[in-house]
């Protein structure tokens, strides 16, 4: 597939509306620009987990080359956790630029899947002024095999 990567991540009203619907949230701050402006914000607010849409704006090549560096076996990879820390609300109309930080890794003995290798992948999102507005951390777990519940 062609790798199309627009510069930065545009925070858009329509995408926020669609995303908020998909997480079953009808909060007017996500859907109604007037409501957001009445609260003193420049546009509708992005829900806390909205930046997971960053995947839309990252080419497959880039994503896989990043994962390739970690030498993961994609059959046995779990999303262990996710964290977002906001300096301020993210609103429609701005563009954020992600910057991947250094990956931390450590091992734990798993109860169900043998030795588990943890990777913490930090990403900083900067606004148009170069200010860090969101710090995100994804935790990816490489298990020794299929994890049964």
């Amino acid at each position, binding site marked *: 597939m062609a790798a199309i990567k627009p510069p930065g991540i545009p925070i858009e009203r329509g995408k926020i509306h669609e995303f908020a619907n*998909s997480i079953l*949230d009808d909060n007017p701050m996500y859907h109604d620009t007037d409501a957001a402006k009445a609260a003193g914000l420049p546009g509708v607010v992005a829900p806390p987990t909205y930046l997971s849409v960053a995947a839309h704006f990252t080419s497959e090549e880039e994503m896989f080359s990043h994962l390739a560096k970690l030498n993961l076996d994609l059959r046995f990879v779990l999303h262990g956790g996710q964290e977002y820390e906001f300096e301020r609300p993210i609103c429609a109309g701005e563009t954020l630029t992600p910057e991947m930080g250094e990956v931390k890794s450590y091992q734990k003995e798993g109860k169900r899947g043998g030795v588990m290798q943890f990777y913490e992948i930090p990403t900083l999102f900067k606004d148009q002024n170069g200010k860090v507005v969101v710090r995100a951390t994804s935790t990816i777990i490489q298990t020794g095999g*299929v994890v049964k519940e």
Partner: protein
Amino acid sequence: MSTVDWKSLKEGEEFKFEVNGFTRTHFVKYAGAGGDFNPIHHDETFARMAGLESVFGMGMLTAGVLSRVPAEWFGPASVKKYTVSFRSRLWPDDNVTFSGKIVKLYEEQGVPHAELEISAVNQKGETLIRGSSVVRPWNPS
């Protein structure tokens, strides 16, 4: 706009809602909106080949629905930190209770903050997500 009286908050206060009957359509809608096209979440044939009974929901879908706890309670602009760890899978037909509880109230540079414990638990009592969130009033300057 949520109208929280930050001065009258108490530790132990709770917020809770339920979503009954998750469907494959929820997973597919989230795939489109969130960009997670791992076939294990939408392709039944693929999921069975991977040894699973059916497709299952993305952790970030459950995490997204759970974010309604701090966002609806305190207002989306008030969410300062949102942290989740994934424990069990979300399956079609699951009924899930999403809840949060204030575990700590404190001030930072004169601004009131609340720390919440949050969780998503299915009809069998299994924890899908355990997490925390920090909220504070957001006053645009």
